[in-house]
Each structure stands twice: as C-alpha cells, then as structure tokens.
C-alpha cells in the first residue's frame, strides 16, 4: 500500500452477520380491558429485548389497545434503546388519543426518567392499580365508543 493511501477505519459491521440478541424477553402483557394492557416490564428493557417489546406493543395497538400501563417494579435496566421504543409507541398512540403511562417506577428507571426529563411525557402512578383505575375513570367520563 502506498504511504499516502488513507487507512480507512473498519466499518462497524461490514461483512458480519447482524446482531442477533439472545432471547431475553422478560416482560409479560396482561389485557385489562379491550383498550388497555398492563405490561410488566421485568428485569430489563434494553437493546436485547427492545425489538420484541416493540413488536408486542404494535400487535396490541393494531388490535385496538390505546392505553399502555408499563409496570416498572423490579426493573433494573432501562437503556437508551428501551426508552426509544417507548417513545416510538408514544408517537404511534398519541394521534389517536392513546396513552403510555408508567407505574411502580423503580429507582433505576426513575433516574433515567428524571435525567431525560421524560416525566413530562409519561404520566406516573404509584401502583398499577392506580393507573388502571385512572383509565377506567377517564373512560367513564367519555362518551360511549371512545378509547
């Protein structure tokens, strides 16, 4: 190679298979009404299970769910990708009046929420029951047939 030939830095994943995360799904989804689900996030929502989480949420959104309660009790990891998919869900739901709310927020998640200021976007409830009750109350106050 000539001395003046620039040396290119290696491309990140050129020639390599796409990253395939091990199955790390730790969340569970419980439908509490035709338009609402509670997602127990579990130990982590991060780059390893974010795609799976997003796909599950989208499936429920397509089925008419408009109120997502994310239960963060016991969640130790919420990374940038995890928060990113929550924002993606938020953007998908808001045009149709849907909501994403947080419940039983663990300290690690609370720190992320505070430092990103995303508490401005995602309403928080001390418990899952409080979040579910809030949706029931909102539904009761709306005309029949709305989410």
């Amino acid at each position, binding site marked *: 190679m000539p001395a003046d030939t620039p040396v290119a830095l290696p491309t990140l*994943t050129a020639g390599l298979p796409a990253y395939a995360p091990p199955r790390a799904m730790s969340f569970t989804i419980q439908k509490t009404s035709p338009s609402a689900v509670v997602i127990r996030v579990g130990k982590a929502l991060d780059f390893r299970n974010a795609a799976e989480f997003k796909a599950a949420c989208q499936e429920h959104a397509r089925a008419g769910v408009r109120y997502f309660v994310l239960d963060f009790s016991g969640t130790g990891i919420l*990374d*940038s*990708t995890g928060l990113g998919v929550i924002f993606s869900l938020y953007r998908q739901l808001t045009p149709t009046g849907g909501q994403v709310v947080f419940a039983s927020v663990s*300290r690690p998640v609370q720190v992320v929420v505070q430092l*990103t200021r995303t508490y*401005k976007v995602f309403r928080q409830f001390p418990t899952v029951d409080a979040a579910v009750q809030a949706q029931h109350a909102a539904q009761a106050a709306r005309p029949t047939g709305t989410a």
Partner: protein
Amino acid sequence: MSTHHFYDLETVVDEVHALFDTWTEDASLRPALDGDGEIVLRLAVHEWIANLVQHAAFVERPPEISLTVTVEADDVYVEVEDTSLGFDLLGQLEAQSAMLDAPAPSERGRGLLMLITCTRALEYRPAGEDRQRLSFRLANPGDAVFAGLFRPADFEPMEALIADELVDGYLSGDGAPPTSHPSSR
C-alpha cells in the same frame, strides 16, 4: 478495584450488571458516587458494552472486554478495553446527533450520546496491538443530564454535545489526559 474480564458477548451484559450489583451491595463506589451516580455509571458502561456487542467487529482476536473502575475522591475513572477492530466513534456520534433532528427519529442510536453527555475526559484510542480502550471520568449526575436525547416538540433543544477533537479517527476528550491512569493490566 481490580480489572474484570469478560469473554462471551452473549452474556457480558448480564455479567457486568451482576458485577455492578455487588458494587452496589458493598458500597464499593462510595463516597465518589451516590446511589443515583451508581445508576448513571452502570448505564454509561451498559451503553458502551451494548455498542460493542452490537456493532464492534471482533475478527482478529477472540472477543474480550475488560472493565476497570477506579474510585477517586469526587468521581470514578473508568477504562473499558476490547479486542475489536475499533471504529469511528466521532462519526457515529455525529450520525446520532443528526438523527435527533429527524421528523421521526429512530428509537435506536442514542447510546453513545448518553455516554458522552454524562461523562468527561472521554477518550477512545488504540491500546496496543489489536486492542481499543475507552476511558472516561464520571461524577454524580447533574440535573437532567440527558435532557434533549428524547424530545417531543415541547422539549428544550439539545445543547451541542460534540466539542471534542478527532485524532487519527479516534475521539480525544478535552485534549488533556485524565489526572490518573491506573493500569488496567
């Protein structure tokens, strides 16, 4: 603290968090970091490891990631070495920063921005043959250190994140070496 080595890219994230669990339990990061500082340090290391696991090319040597955290008076000094080929960190940071201005920004691609906003004296350089080293210092987080990385229209604009210089394709932090460089090997 001693240097911890990880060899399996499929388990390294869980292993690193298990290590942090012991440090939290033993208060090993006190008094430099309080509880929230520990969480931010854990997140910073997590984001870098995530980046390595997803994007780094470990082709010349078997994967190895080494983590050293040194607790000092007011902050911690962190070194993460790996056996990947390395990559253009500054280019990735610029791409991530540009992505935030997109009308519908991707849910991915903010990890390096999170890392750089909560650390200082961040450097990424070759560390001997077939090794790369990320180093940074981290103190207890200021208020809303990550504000702007996720921003609906009513969020405040993100301040300029990248004020570092590029040296031979690698990122050099503030141009000055950290005040101490404990050996990781």
